[in-house]
């Protein structure tokens, strides 16, 4: 069975919790004791209806204040697929949470209230989904019951959203008219929208084609860990363990190791088993495997195995979009930070803040001198060591990095590489 990870974004009022509650309930992923506990708490809090948000709001402070603080992960399955939902809150720490949830998502689900149309927040959702390059975007035009399932109202919202989305780089955009409260077009196609020719939301989630989203062309294998058993039985064994983040690796392939630039061939690809290592015919993203090379080279963690005729960029200067995530500090020019990129760790200096991006208007403020919490901007970084990278638009693994404050050890930024800097 295939796995689909999707992120949902939205505020309390747009019916997101109701929608997730509906999906989970209909997929039988809400258990009786969970529902009873939510009903009990709703009653205690004086809610008139069973507040399904309580299912995901797990922390004491969240229940007390009626807010969602953090990304919550939910799981459900249908006979077709398994799903992991990253449910990101709409109000507090909104950008930071959505970036977190979106970073691993195959699909983003955005809700728009049909009566309100495309509001500021819908634009932000769409922008972040495109910035994080989530391959599929689904817009649920919700509360259709409140406009008597009027097709014109739906088409108007759709056109409005599409207008804005044109300015962004979104490869797959789908619209579905729904009523999360009543379940229209959630699991089954609704008789209330005979004019709608698409599928229900759940059907779409089950069928959307995600296999081709992976990069099977550019072979990339960041070495994560070197396995040397140092036992009599495996005296000369030297395996390079890691996760394939692009392309296909198989025995006999000619490969190059960076930064040394030496070429050799793959002797074997294996995956661990309780009885040692079993051979794998072909390794592809996101498999965790162990590669043995024909020649004895000096290869260590942070090195990159690729192909001689298809190498990532290599350099100490990086041009990137970053999202700043710290409450206590801001990004400024000449700041020094730790950088983590694939399995490589180094230090980086901000050599230039080119602009801060207004995510509502997409306006570039070139006069900006800092990036505060939840702000996004384009920066140039100079690293202490060369990184082996691709553009984020080409590879989400070799194109992404995080920045860490060396004094507090806090993760302060997520970065998406645009190219080499100068």
């Amino acid at each position, binding site marked *: 069975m295939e*796995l689909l990870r999707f992120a949902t974004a939205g505020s309390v009022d747009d019916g997101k919790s109701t929608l997730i509650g509906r999906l989970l309930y209909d997929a039988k992923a809400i258990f009786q004791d969970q529902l009873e*506990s939510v009903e009990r708490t709703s009653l205690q809090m004086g809610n008139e209806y069973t507040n399904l948000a309580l299912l995901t709001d797990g922390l004491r402070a969240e229940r007390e204040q009626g807010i969602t603080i953090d990304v919550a992960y939910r799981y459900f399955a249908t006979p077709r697929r*398994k799903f992991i939902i990253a449910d990101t809150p709409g109000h507090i720490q909104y950008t930071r949470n959505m970036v977190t949830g979106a970073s691993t998502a195959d699909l983003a689900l955005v809700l728009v209230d049909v009566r309100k149309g495309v509001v500021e927040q819908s634009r932000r959702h769409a922008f972040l989904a495109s910035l994080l390059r989530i391959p599929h975007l689904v817009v649920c035009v919700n509360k259709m019951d409140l406009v008597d399932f009027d097709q014109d109202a739906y088409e108007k919202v759709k056109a409005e959203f599409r207008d804005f989305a044109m300015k962004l780089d979104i490869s797959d955009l789908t619209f579905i008219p729904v009523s999360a409260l009543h379940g229209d077009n959630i699991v089954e196609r609704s008789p209330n929208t005979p004019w709608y020719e698409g599928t229900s939301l759940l059907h779409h989630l089950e069928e959307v084609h995600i296999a081709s989203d992976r990069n099977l062309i550019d072979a990339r294998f960041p070495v994560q860990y070197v396995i040397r058993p140092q036992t009599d039985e495996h005296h000369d064994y030297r395996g390079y363990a890691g996760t394939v983040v692009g392309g296909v690796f198989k025995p006999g392939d000619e490969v190059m190791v960076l930064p040394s630039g030496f070429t050799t061939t793959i002797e074997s690809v294996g995956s*661990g088993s309780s009885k040692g290592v079993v051979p794998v015919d072909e390794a592809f993203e996101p*498999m965790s495997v162990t590669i043995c090379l024909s020649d004895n080279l000096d290869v260590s*963690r942070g090195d990159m195995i690729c192909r001689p005729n298809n190498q990532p960029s290599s350099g100490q200067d990086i041009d990137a979009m970053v999202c700043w995530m710290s409450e206590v500090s801001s990004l400024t020019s000449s700041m020094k930070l730790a950088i983590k990129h694939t399995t490589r760790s180094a230090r980086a200096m901000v050599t230039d803040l080119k602009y801060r991006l207004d995510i509502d208007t997409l306006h570039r403020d070139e006069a900006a001198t800092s990036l505060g919490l939840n702000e996004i901007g384009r920066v140039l970084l100079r690293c202490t060591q060369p990184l082996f990278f691709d553009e984020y638009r080409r590879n989400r693994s070799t194109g992404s990095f*995080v920045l860490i404050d060396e004094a507090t050890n806090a*993760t302060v930024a997520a970065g998406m590489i645009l190219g080499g800097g100068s």
Partner: protein
Amino acid sequence: MTVTPTSYELSHLGYLEAEAIHVFREVAAEFERPCLLFSGGKDSIVMLCLATKAFAPARLPFPVMHVDTGHNFPEVIEFRDRCVADVGARLVVASVQQSIDEGRVAEEIGPRASRNQLQTTTLLDAITEHGFDSLFGGARRDEEKARAKERVFSFRDEFGQWDPKNQRPEIWSLYNGRIRRGEHIRVFPISNWTELDIWQYIQREDLEIPAVYYAHDRPVFERDGMLLAESAHISLLPGEEVTSRRVRYRTVGDMSCTGAVESAATTIDQVIEEVSVTRLTERGATRADDRISEAAMEDRKKEGYF
């Protein structure tokens, strides 16, 4: 791994396995003194299997630790020792009884006494004693709502505390394991697995599990809507009556606070069928320790619990 070479697709178990192995290797590469928590329960059996695969053909590059309350199922302890010996790992046992004997904690008294809370002190003492800077745990996000919000790399301060409101953002698969001396990271490689995934993986890998997970006849009594096993570690309240029932366990913790469920499932296939259709969560059905309040798990975790 289940691989369909022509389509380059990984099954959901293959995906979850790859993600967990990546996490194991990341910790082994970045930390000096990791340790794998192991109880002999089904989640830790899967964890031990994944860890073994991550470093094959080498042995585990870290020891395995069990926090033994002294109230465990005897068959689980026997199973634990066999498993650890099989993979050739070093076992560290941190004993709650010893913490009691040394006056580090006081034993609860009365018929509802449990050593569950006491484990936290024993665990934190052992972390200090051995200088562990990272501990692998088998917690899953689907188990409990506080756990649903916890990171894969979960930071603990010098008191072992978890601060749910101040967690490090975790983006892509780039984990931040930087700590200062005295702090540590709890690492949860199977965060994204569900109870059903665990059982399907046990089936796929043909892993042996303790017999208490399968239906057997056992003297039990009912308390708070759960079936608790009769044992030397728990005394009966007035009106409680021991009867023999056909039961199995969905989780395996302390005998004093882990409930059994009535079941006829004696094979892995039957267990999977049962788990697929159950209407109760694993902890809701069987764990007295989570029933204290809505935030029982969150509160224990903040103090340094698993």
